[in-house]
C-alpha cells in the first residue's frame, strides 16, 4: 500500500513552459486535493475532486488545470509557468471531504520557475 505518490520530486521550469504534476493514490479514496505550500503561508487549496469526472476550484486555481479520469489519478497541469508558481505542491486524498476524515498527503513536488 503505497498511499499517495507524486512525481516528480523536483523540477525547474523556465517562464512560459508547461508541465504536469502527477498524483496517484491506491486507497480507493473518492476525494483528492492539490495544495501549494509557500513559506509562512500554510497550505492553499488549488483544486479538488470528489470523484472521477468531477473537479472544482479551490482558493487559488488561477494558472492551473486538473482532470480526474480515474479514481486513482489526479494530475495538476501548469500551462504557462510563472515565477509566482514557485512553490511546493502537495497532493492529498481522503475517504470523504473535510468532516471527520483525515487527509493523506503525498511527499510533495518542489517546483522552481525561473
Amino acid at each position, binding site marked *: 500500500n503505497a498511499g499517495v505518490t507524486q512525481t516528480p520530486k523536483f523540477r525547474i521550469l523556465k517562464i512560459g513552459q508547461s508541465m504536469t504534476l502527477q498524483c496517484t493514490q491506491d486507497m480507493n479514496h473518492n476525494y483528492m486535493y492539490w495544495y501549494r505550500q509557500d513559506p509562512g503561508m*500554510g497550505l492553499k487549496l488549488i483544486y479538488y475532486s470528489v470523484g472521477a469526472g468531477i473537479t472544482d476550484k479551490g482558493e487559488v486555481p488561477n494558472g492551473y488545470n486538473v482532470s480526474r479520469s480515474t479514481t486513482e489519478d489526479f494530475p495538476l497541469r501548469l500551462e504557462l509557468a510563472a515565477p509566482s508558481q514557485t512553490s511546493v505542491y502537495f497532493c*492529498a486524498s481522503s475517504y470523504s*471531504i*473535510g*468532516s471527520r476524515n*483525515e487527509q493523506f498527503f*503525498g*511527499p*510533495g513536488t518542489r517546483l522552481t520557475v525561473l
Partner: protein
Amino acid sequence: AQSVTQLDSQVPVFEEAPVELRCNYSSSVSVYLFWYVQYPNQGLQLLLKYLSGSTLVKGINGFEAEFNKSQTSFHLRKPSVHISDTAEYFCAVTAMNRDDKIIFGKGTRLHILP
C-alpha cells in the same frame, strides 16, 4: 466560514522541556479540529483530531491537545520534547457534519535546542 490562527510562527524549546503550540479558530458552527505534522522534506501526516466527546485528545508521539470551546482554542502540548519532534505543525479546522473543506493554519515551526 471557518478560519484558524496559529499564534507563533516559530517556537524554540530545549530538548526534554515541555512545549505548547497555540491554535485558535473562528467558526459560526460546530467544528472538527486537527493537528498535522510535517517532518523535513515530507508531506503532512495526522497527529491527532477532535471530533466529539472528551476535550482532551491524545495523539501519536506523546502529543495531546485540548479543545476549549469557550476560548475557541485547540492548543497542542507535549510534556517532554525530543530532537525528533523537529517539524512544522499545522492546526486545521472544518465544519462539523458538512461536506466542507479543511482550512489549515499557517504552521508553527518547532525548533528543538540541544
